[in-house]
C-alpha cells in the first residue's frame, strides 16, 4: 500500500458538500433575492416610471444610476452577510471538532490533519462561493440582457471581490474553529477577532479620556483598529463611491468603468487570510482532540478570554453606574477606577466558569483575580499619575509639520504660528493642577467653559491630539495675561483665522461656488401673512441667495483676505458675543490634497458678515448686493453667525422672534 502525502481527500470533500448543501441553498436564496431579484424589480419599476416620453438614453442613465446606487447602499449589508455566512459555514463544517464522538471518529480516519483542514476549507468555500457565483452571475446576465453594460461590468468586478472577501472571512472562521472547542465559542471568537481592535481602541480611548489630562476619545476609529477589524474596514471602505459624477461623465453605452472598489485593501486582507490559514494549520497540528467540548481548545488562551470578559464587565459596570446616578464620568477618575474594579469580577469569574464548566471555581481563581485586579489598578493609577508622560507631552517644534485648532480642515504650517501654539500648549500643561481642580468642581455654578482642541501633524507621520476644557470668568477674560486670554489671542490670530475660514496659503483665485445669502426671516413671516397668494417658499426662492460670478468671486476673496489680515474677521472664542447679520457668504475652496476629515478635495465654509468686515461689505456693496434697498439686517437668532446650513433652515424654518426692523428686500 503506497503511502503518499495528500492535502485533499475526495471522500471528505464530497461528504461535507453533500451534508451541508441545504444550508448553501438557503444562503444562495438570500443572495438571489437581494442581488438579481431586487435589481429586476428596480428595472421594472423604472421602465414603467419612465414611459412618459423620457428618452431611452436618459432612462438608461437614470436606471444605471439607481441600480448602482442600490448596489452601493447594499455593500456594507452584503459584507456583513458574507461575514456571517462564513461564520455559520465554519460552525457547520468544523462541527466535528466540537463533539467528542465526531472528533474521535474523524481523527481516526486515514486522513492527515493537513488534508482534513484543507479539504474542509475547500468544501466550505465551495458551499459559500457557489451561491455567490450563481447570484452575481445572474445579476451580470440581467445587466447584459437589459443592455446595462456598466452594471454588468460592475457586478463582474464585485463577484471577484466578493469571492476574495468570502475567502477572508472563512479563513477567520477556520482560525476561530481551530481555537475553540465548543460550537458556541466559535461564533463568539469570530466576533472577538473581528471587533477586538475596536474594543481595545474603545478601552484605550476611555482610559485616556478618564485618566490622561488633555486626552479624549477620538470620534473616528484609528486606521490600525479599522484594519484589524475586517467587518468594519471592508464594510465601510470597500464601496461603490462617487458614481454620480462618474456616471455623468461616462458614456454608459460603452460600459465605461466608473466604480471605485478598493481592491488593494481586499488583496491585503486576502494575503493576511492566507497567513491566518497557515497559522490555523500549525495550531491544528498542535490541537488535542480531547479538547472537544471545552470552551477553548488551547489552555494558554484562557487568560486572554477571562481578561477580555473582565474588562468588558468592568467598563459596562462603570458606565451603567454612572448612567444610573447621572454623573459626569470624566470628572471622577478615582470613582471610575472603583466602579471598574467592582465590575471586573463578574466577567473574570464567569469566564472561568465557562472554561471549567463548573460554578464552583472561586477558590481556585481568586488568586488570579487578585493579580488581575492589582495589575488593572496599577495600570490605571500609573496612567492617572502620568508615569508615561503622556499628559505632559508637548511636541518639539522641530518635529511638527502642521498644527490645527478645532477643525481638521484648517492646518497651519507657519513656523511662528506653530511655535506660538506650542508655547500656549506648554502653558496649558503647566496649569494642569489648576484646570483639573476647577474641572472637578461643579462647572455650571460659578464659571463659563470653552474647549480648545489641538492637533499636531508630526513629521514622522504621526498625530498628536489634545483637547482641553478651559474654565474662565469675567476677570480672566479682561486680564490679558490669563490663560483664556492667551488662547483667545492665539486662536483668533490672523494666521489661524485665515486657516479656519480659508486656507493657510489661500489666494483669491481658490475661491469657487460663492453664494451670498440674505436670510431675512421677516420675509418669511410676512409671506405667511400676505394675501397675494405668495408662499414663504416663493419668497424664499426669489430672495434668498445669489450666486457670484467668477470675477465677483475673486473680488470677494481679496476682500475677505484683507479683512482677516487687518483683524476685522476673527474666530469667535470664549466670551465673544455672536455677531448677527442676516447676510452671509457660503463658498468652496479647492484643496491641493484631499481633506483629512471629509476626504474631498475642497473645503466648504461660510462667513457671516459682521459690521467690522469693511472690505467685504464694501465689495458686496459695489456689486449691488448690499444697498439701501438691500441693507444689512441684524438677526436676533443667536445661532446665526456660526456655521449654518441654509437648506436645513429652509426645510424646517423655525422663525425666531420677529425683528422690529423692516423686512429685507430680495437680492436680484
Amino acid at each position, binding site marked *: 500500500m503506497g503511502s503518499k502525502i495528500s492535502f485533499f481527500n475526495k471522500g471528505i470533500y464530497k*461528504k461535507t458538500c453533500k451534508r451541508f448543501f441545504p444550508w448553501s441553498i438557503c444562503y444562495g436564496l438570500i443572495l438571489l433575492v437581494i442581488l438579481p431579484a431586487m435589481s429586476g424589480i428596480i428595472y421594472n419599476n423604472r421602465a414603467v416610471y419612465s414611459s412618459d416620453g423620457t428618452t431611452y438614453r436618459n432612462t438608461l442613465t437614470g436606471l444605471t444610476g439607481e441600480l448602482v446606487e442600490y448596489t452601493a447602499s447594499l455593500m456594507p449589508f452584503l459584507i456583513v452577510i458574507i461575514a456571517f455566512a462564513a461564520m455559520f459555514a465554519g460552525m457547520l463544517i468544523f462541527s466535528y471538532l466540537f463533539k467528542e464522538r465526531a472528533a474521535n471518529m474523524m*481523527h*481516526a480516519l*486515514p486522513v492527515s490533519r493537513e*488534508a482534513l483542514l484543507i479539504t474542509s476549507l475547500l468544501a466550505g468555500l465551495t458551499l459559500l462561493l457557489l451561491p455567490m457565483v450563481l447570484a452575481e452571475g445572474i445579476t451580470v446576465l440581467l445587466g447584459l440582457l437589459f443592455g446595462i453594460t456598466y452594471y454588468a461590468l460592475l457586478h463582474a468586478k464585485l463577484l471577484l471581490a466578493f469571492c476574495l472577501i468570502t475567502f477572508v472571512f472563512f479563513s477567520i472562521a477556520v482560525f476561530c474553529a481551530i481555537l475553540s472547542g465548543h460550537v458556541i465559542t466559535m461564533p463568539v471568537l469570530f466576533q472577538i477577532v473581528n471587533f477586538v481592535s475596536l474594543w481595545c481602541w474603545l478601552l484605550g480611548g476611555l482610559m485616556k479620556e478618564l485618566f490622561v489630562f488633555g486626552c479624549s476619545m477620538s470620534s473616528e476609529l484609528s486606521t490600525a483598529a479599522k484594519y484589524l477589524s475586517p467587518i468594519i474596514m471592508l464594510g465601510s471602505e470597500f464601496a461603490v463611491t462617487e458614481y454620480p459624477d462618474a456616471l455623468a461623465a461616462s458614456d454608459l453605452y460603452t460600459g465605461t468603468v466608473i466604480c471605485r472598489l478598493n481592491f488593494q485593501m481586499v488583496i491585503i486582507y486576502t494575503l493576511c487570510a492566507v497567513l491566518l490559514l497557515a497559522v490555523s494549520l500549525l495550531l491544528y497540528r498542535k490541537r488535542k*482532540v*480531547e479538547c472537544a467540548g471545552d470552551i477553548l481548545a488551547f489552555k494558554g488562551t484562557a487568560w486572554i478570554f477571562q481578561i477580555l470578559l473582565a474588562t468588558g464587565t468592568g467598563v459596562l459596570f462603570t458606565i451603567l453606574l454612572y448612567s444610573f446616578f447621572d454623573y459626569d464620568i470624566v470628572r471622577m477618575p478615582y470613582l471610575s477606577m472603583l466602579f471598574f474594579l467592582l465590575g471586573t469580577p463578574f466577567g473574570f469569574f464567569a469566564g472561568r466558569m465557562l472554561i471549567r464548566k463548573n460554578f464552583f471555581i472561586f477558590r481556585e481563581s481568586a488568586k488570579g483575580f487578585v493579580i488581575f485586579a492589582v495589575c488593572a489598578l496599577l495600570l490605571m493609577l500609573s496612567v492617572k499619575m502620568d508615569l508615561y508622560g503622556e499628559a505632559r507631552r508637548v511636541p518639539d517644534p522641530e518635529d511638527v509639520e502642521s498644527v490645527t485648532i478645532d477643525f481638521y480642515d484648517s492646518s497651519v504650517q507657519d513656523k511662528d504660528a506653530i511655535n506660538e501654539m506650542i508655547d500656549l500648549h506648554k502653558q496649558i500643561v503647566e496649569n494642569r493642577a489648576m484646570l483639573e481642580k476647577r474641572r472637578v468642581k461643579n462647572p455650571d455654578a460659578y464659571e463659563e467653559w470653552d474647549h480648545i482642541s489641538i492637533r499636531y501633524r508630526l513629521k514622522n507621520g504621526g498625530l498628536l491630539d489634545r483637547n482641553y476644557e478651559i474654565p474662565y470668568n469675567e476677570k480672566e477674560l479682561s486680564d490679558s495675561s490669563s490663560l483664556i486670554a492667551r488662547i483667545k489671542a492665539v486662536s483668533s490670530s490672523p494666521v489661524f483665522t485665515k486657516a479656519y475660514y480659508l486656507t493657510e496659503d489661500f489666494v483669491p483665485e481658490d475661491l469657487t461656488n460663492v453664494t451670498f445669502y440674505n436670510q431675512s426671516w421677516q420675509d418669511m413671516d410676512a409671506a405667511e401673512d400676505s394675501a397675494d397668494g405668495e408662499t414663504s417658499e416663493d419668497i424664499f426662492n426669489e430672495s434668498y441667495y445669489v450666486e457670484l460670478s467668477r470675477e465677483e468671486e475673486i473680488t470677494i476673496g481679496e476682500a475677505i483676505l484683507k479683512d482677516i489680515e487687518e483683524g476685522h474677521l476673527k474666530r469667535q472664542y470664549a466670551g465673544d458675543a455672536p455677531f448677527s447679520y442676516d447676510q452671509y457668504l457660503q463658498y468652496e475652496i479647492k484643496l491641493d490634497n484631499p481633506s483629512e476629515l471629509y476626504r474631498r478635495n475642497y473645503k466648504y465654509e461660510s462667513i457671516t458678515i459682521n459690521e467690522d468686515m469693511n472690505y467685504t461689505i464694501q465689495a458686496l456693496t459695489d456689486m449691488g448686493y448690499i444697498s439701501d434697498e438691500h441693507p444689512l439686517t441684524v438677526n436676533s437668532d443667536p445661532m446665526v453667525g456660526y456655521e449654518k446650513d441654509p437648506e436645513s433652515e429652509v426645510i424646517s424654518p423655525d422663525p425666531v422672534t420677529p425683528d422690529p426692523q423692516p423686512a429685507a428686500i430680495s437680492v436680484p
Partner: protein
Amino acid sequence: MIQINNVTKTFGGFKALDQTCIHVHKGSIYGLVGPNGAGKSTIIRHLTGVYRPDEGELLIDGQPVYENPALKSRIAYIPDNLFFFLNDNLKDMMRFYRDLYPRFSMERYELLREAFPTIDEKRSLRRLSKGMQKQAAFWLAVCCMPDVIILDEPVDGLDPIMRRQVWSLLMSDVAEHETTVLVSSHNLRELEDVCDSVGIMDKGKVVLERSLSDLQGKTTKLQVIFEGDLPVFPKELPILHISNIGRVYTIIVRESREAAAKLLAPYSPLMIDTLPLSLEEIFIYELGGAEYGIKDIIL
C-alpha cells in the same frame, strides 16, 4: 504487530495512562480488560491515532500511528459510542468509507448483506437501534479489509445470536487474513472464548499481560480442608485470595495446578482439590490484589 511502549497520557493533571506497555502478535485476538476508568478506551484512542501520547511510543507494524494516514487505512475501529453523520444511511456511510479506505471491498459488502438481514440499508443510521448500529459498524469495518481491527466494547447491545455471528466473522477474518484484533470488553466470558491473549489494565497500567492459556494454566483455585484452623502461610507464597465456607477454604494461587498442590502439601490438608479458573475469576482475584476486590458490603 502492535507495540505500545511506556505510553503516558495526562488529562488536566490526571494520569490516564502511566507507562503502559502492550504487545499484540500478528493474527491474534487480544483482549483488553480492566475496571472502569482503567484507561482501556484511552489506549484504544491512541492506537487509532486519535490521541497523541505525552510520552512513549505506539507502533503498528513497526510504524507510529499518529498522523500516519497510510497506516490508519489498514486499521478499522469500532468505538463504544458510534458516530454517524446526521441522516446518513448505511449506503451513504459505505460510500464514505469506500472513498477513504483504498482496500474497501464492495464484493464483501454484498456478501455480508446476508449476515445482517435485519438492517435496512436505506434507513437513517441514527434511527436504528443501538444493536443495529453496532451491526452496521461491523459490516462496514470488515469491508475495509483491515490488517488491524480495534474494538471498544464491540458486542455491547447485540443479541446473543448476533454476538455469535460477529465473533464468528472476526475469527474467520483472523484465520483467513491474519487480521490482528484488539478488543476491549467487560464481558470476560466471551473474551475467554475468543482471545489468544489478555492484558489486564488498572489505573493506567497493564498489571498483567499473558496468553490466555498461560494465564489460566498459571493460576489455580484450590479447595482445601485443614485439620485445625487455617495455617499461617509465609508471605512468599503466591496466594492471591483466601476465603472460606465453614472448614472449606478456597485459596487462589498464582501457580500451575501441580505446583499449587505441592505448595500446600506441607500443611497436611485433610482434603485438597484443584479447580480451573475462569478469566472472570482471574480478573477479580488479580485486581483484588490491586485494591479493587469485591467488598463485602452489607446494606
